[in-house]
């Protein structure tokens, strides 16, 4: 659990977290000619497809739609990667789990860190696009780090629960993929939340990711500071998910080495 003693222990393992994250990051692009460029190319290709489909065929009218879309994709990708890689954090490393001791949540932290590294690269692309479209962020952009930290906590909490459940029930991974697929369309990534009528909007906004992405866009692209209510909601959701994630993880953790 998140006790000061545990945090101190985790801090003592910071070298290992970074080393594991970095080596996973490198392994992702092993044997590929373009290497790191793939992580830049992937969201761009996705952007291209979605942009063509939704701005021309569906005629969605949004200011800076390309940037709007790209930011949504990058933020969602972080959730997608962080939870998917985190989910395999335990079952994907049987050697480490069965032969050495360290706090097991460290593996999940490192998986989420790998996802973070990839997202940072994507953000570099996003910044490049902002320059191309001559969009300069204003003061409210300062809220973005806070929003992103909350997303990281949310992703980490989900990954903790998923990784632990995946040790016992291997079909969690398939179920989660379906949920992610559905989530991609149920979250305002390719469309603005305003396309829904008001009553449906509040329903969609139950999803903390919907609020995270909307707030991120507002503060980066539209010079609008997030509402305190939204921030508080997301913070509360992230905290609940984190605690729930730790409860599940700590409950199942003692038998990882036997069940893996």
């Amino acid at each position, binding site marked *: 659990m998140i006790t000061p003693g545990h945090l101190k222990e985790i801090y003592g393992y910071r*070298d*290992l977290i970074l*080393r*594991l994250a970095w*080596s996973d990051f*490198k*392994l992702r692009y*092993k*044997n590929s000619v373009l290497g790191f460029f793939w992580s830049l190319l992937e969201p761009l290709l996705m952007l291209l497809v979605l942009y063509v489909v939704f701005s021309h065929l569906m005629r969605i009218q949004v200011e800076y739609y390309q940037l709007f879309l790209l930011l949504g994709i990058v933020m969602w990708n972080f959730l997608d990667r962080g939870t998917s890689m985190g989910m395999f954090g335990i079952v994907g*490393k049987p*050697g*480490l*789990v*069965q*032969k*050495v*001791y*360290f706090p097991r949540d460290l593996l999940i932290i490192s998986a989420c860190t790998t996802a973070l590294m990839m997202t940072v690269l994507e953000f570099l692309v996003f910044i490049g696009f902002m320059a191309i479209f001559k969009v300069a962020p204003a003061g409210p952009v300062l809220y973005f780090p806070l929003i992103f930290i909350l997303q990281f906590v949310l992703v980490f909490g989900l990954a903790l629960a998923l990784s632990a459940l995946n040790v*016992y*029930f*291997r*079909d*969690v991974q398939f*179920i989660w993929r379906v949920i992610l697929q559905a989530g991609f369309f149920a979250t305002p990534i390719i469309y603005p939340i305003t396309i829904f009528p008001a009553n449906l909007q509040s329903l969609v906004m139950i999803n903390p990711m919907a609020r995270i992405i909307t707030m991120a866009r507002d503060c980066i692209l539209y010079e609008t500071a997030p509402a305190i209510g939204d921030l508080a909601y997301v913070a509360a959701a992230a905290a609940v998910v984190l605690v729930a994630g730790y409860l599940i993880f700590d409950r199942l953790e*003692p*038998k990882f*080495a*036997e069940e893996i």
Partner: protein
Amino acid sequence: MAAVVEVEGLSKTFRIPHERRTTVFETLAGAFRKNEYEVFSVLEAVTFTVGEGECVGIIGDNGSGKSTLLKVIANILRPSGGTVTVRGRMTPFLELGVGFQPDLTVRDNVAMYATIMGLSNGVIRERIDDVIEFAGLARFEDAKLKNLSSGMQVRLAFSTAIQTDPDVLLVDEVLAVGDMEFQQKCFEVFNRYRKEGVTTLFVSHDLNAVRRFCDKTLLLSHGRQVAFGETGEIIDRYVYGGEGRERPGEEARTGGAGSGGAAEVTLAPQPDSPTIEEEAAEPRRWGDGKVAITEVELLDKFGARGNRFSSFDPMTVRIRYLAKEKIADPIFGIALYDEEGRHLYGTNTQLKDHPIEEIKGAGCVDLEVARIPMLSGKFLLTVAAHTREGKPYDWLDKQYSFEVVPAGRDAGIVEVPCRWSRG
């Protein structure tokens, strides 16, 4: 002396379900049926304490729970009952090269493994060149690990692992891999750790290594703690006591093992009782049966029967016979073979100038071996009674076997009495 590792009433059970549910669907479908499982007890009530700087060996047959014990101490598995307390920084050597990634370079892997073993980044930067140098892989430092031979990988893992400076070291059969030179290196490193006062727990099948390194030894059998104490004593109990091991068929034939050094031998002569081995094999027993060899006992230094002996220990071959009529001038003999059937030694009462005038009824003759000269291995024994002319009364060809476990460090099959000196 402060206790560094305390194990108190430790038990560990595994639950093995009859029907393993690994998917959500199976769990839902099976939720209304009772999931039956077997409880398999791996460790029971193990209690011992290791003082600072002590080296403790853990021995026992396969499946006796040695490795599980080490994993529980290493905090990889959680105990089902009892407590384990470890004071100080612990480094487990349960496997060499944990976390090696075949697709990363040698350099990256050393850094990775060193981090897993608990070295800080600063120390790694400082020592990484030495490590690669020591493994003899300086030329390959940018090669991918998968392109290295397995021997090179082990060397690399080992030279990385020994950079750690733990307070408590857990070693599980790491020495079993690698060639002679590598093993020698391992021994040197463990000696160094010992001198530095590192507390060590050492699981091994190599009794010789345990004898050399360990002050105390823990003997496990089927998860139970049989004995914990001074190494020489415990190894004797393991080798001779019949404790902590299952006796193979050989024992059943000679009438079951006496246990725990008890010298009691009760035997009724059982003429020609057929044994499994005799029935199965081609005739390996012949003779006119005027003298029947009813029993051959191998007695260890405690006078107890057994079929495992430490080299350099004494041993007695007791041959029990039954002469149906009065037989004059019989000769009893033995012949010793190695496992491949090569004849190593033979002698008899005539050659040793120990004439037996006549025998009638049941009796026994002993062949006393003052010091077993073989270093290690399995050996076969032929026992026979025959006339002066060599006509067999009863010939049991390679019907008995025993095992010799090493007690020293010399290499080879037999001991040559010798010493070094400088002229």
